[in-house]
């Protein structure tokens, strides 16, 4: 069960002192411009007003309480594949 105290809705204790850090999280629920996110076990809300096309199950990068970008697992794997090809070609 998610306890949503207004003052802690957008608080993520582990990054409280570090506004620079973007934290990846999985979207578990969407209510309009807000989403409930799972940060590897820690459940918090964040705004998704700066992203379009966010679905439950997506991974997003969160910066000061706002999701700023979607993380694409396929693209991550594709990046590594491309690097491998690049380095093989140069060998």
């Amino acid at each position: 069960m998610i306890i949503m105290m207004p003052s802690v809705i957008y608080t993520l204790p582990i990054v409280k002192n570090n506004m620079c850090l973007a934290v990846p999280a999985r979207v578990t629920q969407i209510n309009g411009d807000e989403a409930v996110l799972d940060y590897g076990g820690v459940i918090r809300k964040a705004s998704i007003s700066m992203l379009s096309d966010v679905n439950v199950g997506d991974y997003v990068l969160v910066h000061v309480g706002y999701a700023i970008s979607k993380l694409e697992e396929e693209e991550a794997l594709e990046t590594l594949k491309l690097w491998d090809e690049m380095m093989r070609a140069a060998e």
Partner: protein
Amino acid sequence: MRYDIFNDKTTAMRIIQKIRSFSQDVKIMHVCGTHEQTITKNGLRALLPENVKVVPGPGCPVCITPASEINSAIQISRQGAIITTYGDMLRVPGTTSSLAKEKAQGGDVRVVYSPFEAREIAMRNPDKQVVFLGIGFETTAPMTAHIIKTAPENFSVLCSHRLVPPAMELLLKGGYDIDGFIDPGHVSAIIGISPYEKICEEFHTPQVIAGFEPLDVLMAILMILKQIRNNTAKVENEYWRVVKPEGNLQALRVMNEVFEPCSKEWRGLPVIPGASLKLRPEFSEFDTEKRFDLTPEGDACGTDCPMCGSILKGISNPQDCELFGKLCTPENPVGACMVSSEGTCNIEYRYGLSII
């Protein structure tokens, strides 16, 4: 989702071998504290050949916030307002005090993780003025803008936001012999590729947008070296799993709607044309500087250590500073670079070899 795939040692060694095949002397600058964190924490510099130098630039927004702007927040706090800001800002030295010291003396200074919390504090305290000291680069400015659009009357923003690309231009004009830039991944997630392309055209400087895992940074270095060898200068995007070429259009729209560029000084750097943000006239009612009676006080650097400026320009290392690790520590920072976990001196203190 697995995050360790960009941490693989075998791939790292393959990339490093390629990097070692370059014999030219090269100085690459990054402009993001998180990149410095990745490089120092993982000991990447020790793996690079001597001819490839990677230096940190002014990439930590906490470090470059001038003492004069901290002094303004202190003045407002003394007038009885609630000051809200990100945790790192509390210990940044002003000229004679800091927000942490003000809090210790009874000032109402509150740490927030998101501007949402600052707005909430304002809603809960309608009889009090609540000021949000908004700092950060393009990664946090859109969020401040978003909050301003729905803020209550007693809320205002002391705007200390800064923009990265104009600072890169200044460093290139300054003749610091920078051969390539590792562009900041999350700033780029907001602004996209085009602002860097203008820099490429004007200065013929290779750039790679990079993520924050060890392999991201190593690959970015290799890609820059390849551009240098081929005598090309373009913006490549190594972090395309997060950064889209156009950036985040929603974030850019709200940022440009509320803010406009202006020219202010940075700590350790001079006034950089168009590298700061201020509220547009339509939103001036939420501008703290217009709402409060402020007397400009102090210069950019306050009582900092003498090395802050040259560390922020990538000329000096933290070890060159005689205060580093002695008088100036994360518990008791003298200079701003020691305050934030993104600051060059703070990172060197926690992970660097010089401390052992």
